[in-house]
């Protein structure tokens, strides 16, 4: 019976609304007070039923909820035969609740979109070798699954047979399809755009990368900041306090009307809902734009950041070094380049890759006696020649004399921020290559946007040589640049800044820089959603796109502001209402309920603005997670 009434809440709301309208028409149109009273009595009883049931349930578990306040108020109004008030108040309360639910769904829509990408079913191999469609919850690790063109990969796994292209935008934010074949890893929530593959399930459900992202976002939207926990504690005592206040008012004034009006006006609705609404809308906006924010505490801290530290590799630069400058000395250069390529072909050093790419097609020769000189380079024998490839230190060690021209080139190349690769054949310098990393397109604009948002210090910390770091810094207009830094140096530097009272965000790739990410007030992981990044950081930028960073910062600032606005609105409304009941004569229960419900809708709508937040004058690359 009780559950049935609660299920019919929406219908009851409409019915009592219609009854109220009929009552008013009868009263003012036909001057019929009997119909007026009858309809309002029915509307009151009908309307108060679901509220009273909820109040009773709440009291049973020793909670004084808003329902309790409203129920007592309505019964009180009914007893003093003010049917108009009792009917209208119950209707407004129910109707307000209905609108709240509808609008709240809106604020939560962005996160819902994300969770709805989660795969629901899988084609699992059963005993006879056939594949059968099962619920994704019924897939266990080690199961063999079939994924067809257009389908979602249901779990994290390894490709056993077949090949195809997969769109991994839901994990990496990268919409360019990735080729998959036997032995490669696939991720849950990604989409097989062509081909058919069979995979072995390695991680299922919440253990998958996508599962972790969803869990993170879900936990984040319900995480509570210190302020919110305070409001929670406050409202736990606030509602009973209103009840006591109303009773005291009644004791002294013997005015039931006034006492029940206090009950309605004191409802704390907008206060408790204001902050969570801003929070969920802000985090939802982030999730939609490839920015994962881990909760409202993060939003609060991030919005106050004044220093951002960058780890150069892979954040400001492409992370893909290229030969930018080169110089040749003496003759037979083609032959030398062939030797160089032959040796570098066997190395997996990133600079070697850049060298090979630059040389392109050439004749390869057999390489013998390869010896890696730590901190120097490689020495090997090719076609009977002794080949030394490496930095200046290696050349000195090999007794290669550098003539004046070479000295000048080396100085110039280094000044331009290059890493040097020298090649000597039989003790004579032949080739000098300057290799450097390219700055990511658009980064400069992004950094300027950060400055406009109020970040005072933009500092790069890098393991590269000071020349390289200085150059990047100069080109991008950073405030400071420090080279030759090991991960522990970066962490120490960060703590030094924090000791000076700065609020520091650290942007890293989440793999080499876990200590700094964890130590920073805000750890921001760039790049694909790797497990480490998700766990150690506070903010995850879903792909390596720097343009997300200004959006993230602007968003947290707006969200923090939005929360404050909502608190001010909520507290202000209650103060004004309570003041006006004592100091004015126009205030009554119905107006109080109307203002109260309206204030709830106002804070929800205010929060909803965050869903549409975009950084003004700044374009985020369009291939977001969608």
């Amino acid at each position: 019976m009780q559950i049935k009434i609660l299920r019919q809440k929406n219908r009851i709301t409409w019915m009592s609304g219609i009854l109220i309208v009929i009552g008013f028409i009868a009263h003012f149109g036909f001057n019929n007070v009997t119909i007026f009273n009858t309809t309002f009595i029915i509307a009151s009883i009908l309307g108060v039923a679901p509220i009273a049931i909820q109040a009773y349930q709440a009291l049973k578990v020793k909670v004084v909820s808003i329902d309790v306040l409203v129920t007592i108020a309505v019964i009180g109004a009914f007893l003093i035969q003010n049917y108009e008030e009792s009917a209208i108040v119950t209707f407004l309360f129910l109707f307000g609740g209905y609108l709240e639910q509808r609008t709240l769904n809106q604020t939560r829509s962005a996160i819902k979109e994300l969770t709805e990408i989660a795969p629901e079913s899988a084609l699992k191999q059963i005993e006879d070798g056939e594949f059968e469609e099962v619920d994704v919850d019924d897939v266990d690790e080690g199961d063999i699954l079939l994924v067809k063109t257009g389908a979602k990969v249901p779990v994290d796994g390894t490709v056993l047979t077949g090949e195809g292209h997969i769109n991994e935008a839901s994990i990496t934010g990268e919409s360019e399809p990735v080729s998959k074949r036997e032995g490669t890893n696939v991720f849950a929530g990604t989409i097989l755009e062509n081909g058919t593959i069979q995979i072995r399930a390695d991680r299922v459900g919440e253990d998958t990368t996508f599962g972790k992202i969803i869990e993170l976002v879900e936990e984040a939207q319900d995480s509570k900041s210190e302020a919110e926990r305070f409001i929670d504690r406050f409202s736990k005592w606030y509602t009973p306090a209103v009840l006591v206040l109303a009773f005291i008012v009644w004791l002294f004034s013997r005015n039931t009307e006034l006492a029940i009006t206090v009950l309605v006006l004191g409802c704390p609705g907008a206060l408790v809902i204001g902050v969570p609404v801003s929070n969920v809308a802000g985090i939802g906006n982030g999730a939609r734009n490839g920015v994962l924010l881990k909760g409202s505490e993060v939003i609060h801290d991030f919005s106050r950041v004044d220093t951002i530290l960058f780890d150069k590799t892979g954040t400001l630069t492409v992370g893909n070094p290229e030969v930018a400058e080169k110089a040749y000395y003496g003759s037979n250069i083609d032959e030398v380049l062939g030797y160089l390529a032959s040796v570098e072909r066997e190395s997996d050093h990133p600079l070697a890759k850049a060298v090979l790419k630059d040389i392109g097609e050439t004749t390869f020769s057999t390489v013998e006696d390869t010896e890696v000189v730590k901190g120097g380079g490689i020495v090997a024998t090719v076609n009977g020649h002794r080949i030394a490839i490496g930095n200046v230190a290696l050349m000195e060690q090999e007794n290669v004399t550098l003539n004046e021209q070479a000295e000048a080139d080396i100085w110039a190349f280094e000044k331009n921020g290059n890493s040097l690769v020298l090649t000597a054949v039989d003790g004579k310098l032949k080739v000098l290559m300057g290799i450097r990393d390219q700055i990511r397109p658009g980064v400069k604009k992004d950094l300027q946007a950060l400055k406009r948002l109020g970040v005072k210090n933009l500092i790069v910390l890098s393991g590269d040589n000071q020349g390289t770091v200085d150059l990047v810094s100069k080109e991008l207009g950073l405030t400071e640049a420090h080279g030759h830094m090991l991960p522990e140096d970066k962490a120490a530097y960060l703590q030094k800044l924090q000791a000076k009272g700065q609020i520091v965000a650290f942007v890293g790739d989440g793999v080499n820089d876990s200590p700094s990410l964890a130590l920073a007030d805000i750890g921001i992981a760039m790049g694909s959603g790797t497990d480490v990044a998700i766990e150690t950081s506070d903010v995850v930028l879903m792909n390596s796109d720097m343009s997300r960073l200004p959006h993230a910062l602007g968003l947290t600032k707006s969200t923090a502001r939005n929360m404050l606005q909502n608190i001010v609105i909520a507290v202000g409304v209650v103060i004004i209402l309570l003041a006006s009941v004592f100091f004015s004569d126009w205030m009554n229960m119905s107006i109080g309920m109307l203002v109260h419900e309206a204030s709830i809708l106002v804070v929800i709508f205010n929060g909803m603005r965050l869903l549409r937040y975009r950084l003004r004058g700044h374009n985020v690359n369009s291939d977001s997670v969608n």
Partner: protein
Amino acid sequence: MSKATISLETLSCPSCLQKIEAAVKGVNGVDAESVKVMFNSSKVKLDFNADVAPIETIEKAIEKMGYPVIKSKVKSA
């Protein structure tokens, strides 16, 4: 101990949280410390002893408060 995630219909009033939390904690066999009602995702997460309190009992306790359960996911540990 089993872990359950119970999805509810959209929660709209934060005071519902207190009610649901109290109701779930009141079920014998539920680890009171573990009960977490999530307002925005409209979910309840908890640890419970399935032998003492089958998931249906917990669902019923929530529905009796007036909050329909959409689905429950139970993971036995």
